[in-house]
């Protein structure tokens, strides 16, 4: 009992010290309040931007002394674009399709229509493509696009109406079909292809789950980086197959002028987007299975990405506007494929 008194005093002193610590901490931190930056992105870039944001915050603090708090938001590319149009205060957008950023420019006028020419390489600091993910040992012998329309092959791809990745996959397939002899054969090919699709997921992750966890289908049309992620997660159950040709998927980035001017973050946001092209960020890009643009990173990761002929959307489809009107708009080719005969 006699020990109770001193020990209580020790405890009180301890509690006092604990109580003071946060106060001191707060006083020390009060000087540079962190500046927030919001990057609104699409679904599979979550891990990539987590690393890039940490690297940029460190780089920016070293250069300017400013402490940054970079927030990231992920979701379907179209849904994210709508959130920005409806007023989400993003400083930069990094989406799956240029078409989605075009909509932001057209509907909310947050950036000029020529936004894509403001940064190098069509404002796409990294690219990707569409590859096939098949089950271990490739039991159905799927090597190239013609194998997808064989009877008995189940193809998993999300709905191109709701998924950016699925639009790239659809266009890659169509580009192959067009090589068979133009619009007629291409249309036949797409009709046969979607006859083999048992489930249309809403997004890329949804489709990956259907394929990898529900064991549905024989081949998943996937973002290259998602295919690598699936391999990392499920290991030996799957294999990546590179088709004879595919599409150069260019997920673009852009500064939202009206938002950064209102929030006075133009300098930082510009620095952030330029940083994406730097050797440091480009190395992270390669690490996360996106195809880098910068020479050193390209050389470093050359072995990881198989070189196959990639068509661009401008060459094969005349840009996003035309591709959307011909394929994804209401009543366009994708709807016609599903119209009951």
């Amino acid at each position: 009992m006699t020990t109770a008194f001193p020990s209580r005093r020790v405890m009180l002193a301890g509690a006092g010290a604990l109580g003071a610590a946060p106060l001191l901490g707060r006083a020390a931190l009060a000087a540079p309040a962190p500046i927030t930056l919001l990057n609104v992105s699409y679904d599979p870039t979550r891990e990539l931007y987590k690393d890039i944001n940490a690297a940029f915050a460190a780089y920016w603090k070293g250069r300017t002394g400013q402490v940054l708090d970079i927030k990231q938001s992920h979701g379907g590319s179209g849904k994210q674009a709508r959130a920005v149009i409806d007023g989400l205060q993003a400083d930069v957008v990094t989406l799956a399709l240029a078409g989605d950023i075009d909509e932001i420019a057209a509907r909310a006028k947050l950036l000029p229509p020529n936004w894509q020419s403001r940064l190098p390489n069509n404002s796409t600091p990294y690219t990707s493509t569409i590859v096939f993910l098949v089950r271990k040992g490739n039991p159905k012998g799927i090597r190239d696009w013609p194998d997808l329309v064989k009877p008995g092959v189940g193809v998993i791809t999300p709905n191109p109406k709701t998924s950016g990745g699925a639009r790239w996959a659809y266009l890659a397939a169509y580009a192959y079909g067009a090589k068979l002899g133009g619009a007629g054969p291409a249309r036949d090919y797409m009709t046969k292809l979607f006859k083999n699709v048992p489930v249309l997921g809403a997004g890329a992750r949804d489709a990956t789950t259907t394929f990898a966890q529900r064991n549905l289908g024989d081949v998943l049309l996937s973002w290259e980086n998602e295919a690598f992620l699936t391999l990392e997660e499920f290991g030996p159950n799957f294999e990546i197959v590179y088709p004879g040709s595919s599409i150069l998927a260019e997920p673009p980035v852009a500064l939202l002028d009206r938002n950064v001017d209102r929030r006075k973050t133009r300098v930082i946001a510009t620095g952030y987007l330029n940083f994406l092209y730097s050797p440091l960020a480009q190395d992270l890009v390669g690490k996360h299975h996106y195809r880098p643009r910068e020479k050193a990173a390209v050389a470093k990761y050359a072995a990881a990405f198989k070189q196959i002929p990639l068509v661009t959307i401008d060459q094969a489809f005349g840009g996003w506007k035309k591709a959307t009107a011909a394929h994804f708009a209401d009543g366009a080719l994708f709807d016609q494929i599903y119209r009951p005969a």
Partner: protein
Amino acid sequence: MTAAAIPAAPVRARRPWVVHSILPGFGLSLGITLAYLGAIVVLPLIALALRPWELGLSGVWHELASPRVAKAFRLSFGLSALAALVNAPLGLLIAWTLTRYRFVGRRVLDALVDLPFALPTAVAGIALTAIYAPTGPLGRVAAQFGIKTAYSPLGIFIALVFIGLPFVVRALQPVLQDLDAEVEEAATTLGANAFQRAFRVILPALAPALVSGVSLAFARAVGEYGSVVFIAGNLPGKTEIAPLLIVIKLEQYDYAGAAAVGLAMVAVSFGSLVAINALQLRLAKRGRA
């Protein structure tokens, strides 16, 4: 109840706007009620109702007349009605078991009924898909009999039964609790057999609550999106529900088209709820007579 026994005045006078109440605070309560309902319910509905007309009348008609929209509506409303009707007898049985018997674990069962309310719908959808997919424990059994559960209309039906069940059970429980056992005892002493007790005494008393529970389950199922998209397969014209059609239209920045489909859904839902309410009133009157 006693008021109903007094014969009403034969000539119905013009109904007054407000029947005077001795309770104070009518103005304030009604004001808050109207403001709240206005902000929460009416305002968004007005925004929805105004949106489609930028397409023009023919544009809205064109939007709704497409076979794909018609098919999605048939699927959504048909399966929702079916699911709600299946939940009626089963929900009644569950409510009966939970109120009329005392057994160990009753409270746990009672809490389980609420789970479809509490679970995020996406979680429910993923869980149901895992079970009913061709590789899942139940889906595999069904597949052996040649029945496709997940990724078919049957899968949608299963999800809608799941989310609708608590509405039926929770609507019936309080009424069952208030139904005195003495009423049944009296019926028995007057010579009613079990069948007569169930269909002439108990069911008429429960009918209004049952109808309201079923209609709530139906209304909820019609708008259900989160759990259904995972299990449906979402093939246009086959397993594409009306709410998914709205999401797809939004994804194409077709706000007006999405609003047109949404408005049509509200109209059909509201129409069926009004019809069901009328039925419920008639049942309630008959139950009292």
